[in-house]
């Protein structure tokens, strides 16, 4: 069995509520994390993301200046100079399906509803480390594959018109470089 060594993870917590930051930090320390950074709004979170280069970000939705969705969108830019693939866990009081879908469409990796528990947070963190999904880049989306479960019975909206050819453009490398440079 594989165990995640939290001492080797650098985690950024972005939440405008000091009490919630303390709760999350306490849980992370309990898991073994030692390098935990905190930011109290989206702007400070973006700055800490670029300066501290965290391995995982835990972000609240409702925050002043710009919120967790806007922060996620700013990070998920394929041409970014800083890791646009960083796992983002949205920790929020919102539980409505529409909000979950909106977070997913912004590029969130995992969604975690408050009230938070040690088990649920641990599970989301494990998913980020052990089961990362591939990323999808389209004209209007860049983020983790929204089809979480690989199966032949996908029933969501069909956004991909082509799935049959592995490489449609022979200059794949050039395309890839342009997508990521």
């Amino acid at each position, binding site marked *: 069995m594989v165990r995640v*060594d939290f001492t080797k993870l650098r985690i950024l917590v972005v939440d405008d509520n000091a*009490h919630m930051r303390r709760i999350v930090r306490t849980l992370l320390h309990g898991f073994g994390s030692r390098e935990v950074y905190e930011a109290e709004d989206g702007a400070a979170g973006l700055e800490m993301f670029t300066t501290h280069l965290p*391995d995982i970000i835990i972000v609240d939705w409702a925050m002043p200046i710009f919120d967790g969705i806007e922060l996620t969108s700013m990070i998920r830019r394929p041409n970014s100079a800083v890791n646009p693939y960083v796992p983002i866990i949205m920790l929020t009081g919102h539980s409505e399906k529409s909000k979950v879908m909106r977070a997913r469409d912004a590029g969130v990796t995992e969604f975690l509803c408050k009230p938070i528990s040690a088990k649920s947070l641990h599970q989301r963190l494990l998913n980020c480390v052990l089961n990362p999904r591939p990323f999808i880049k389209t004209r209007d989306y860049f983020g983790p594959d929204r089809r979480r479960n690989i199966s032949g019975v996908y029933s969501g909206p069909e956004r991909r018109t082509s799935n049959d050819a592995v490489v449609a453009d022979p200059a794949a490398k050039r395309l890839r470089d342009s997508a990521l440079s």
Partner: protein
Amino acid sequence: MPHTPLDPPLDVEWRKVDAEVFSDHTVLHPPNRLKERATELIGPRGSGEAEAIHRAERALGVLSQEFASWMDAEIERLEEARKAFATKPYRDAADALYRVAHDLRGQAATLGYPLAGEIAEGLCVFIERLEARPLPQAVVDRHVESIRAIVRQDVRGRDNPVGVALTLRLAQLRAQYAPGMGAE
């Protein structure tokens, strides 16, 4: 707590990404450096995870001694936001009030007051669904007063019939101001 910084971040590794290019989308496979760097093989299944979770729960248990005072501070924030909205009932004040209520909605259960969180949720949903319509001060006041009373009387969850009756009355109040919004 002082700590030794980890290894330098892998700030360039993410650029080395395998890609499958399709006509209208690209599938990218970033290397999983986190798994390489932060995992190790251990013994029987589940033992490491359970231990980490128990450690975190114990740490949260110690922290919970502070939760009553945290709840008081959150309610004070809510009261201040209510007063600010009563003085200047504009968009900024309503947004600030929503954020404080939303904080309570999310953390009241963790702090030991799930029923207060439920009332805060009712207020949040009410504000969301009103959208551009003016937020009735009376609805705000009743919700804030109810949360204060519930915490003052140490009413925690749905095992208290008076608390449950109060949440029903608030739902009716919301429906009165905006039909269809009370029974969410």
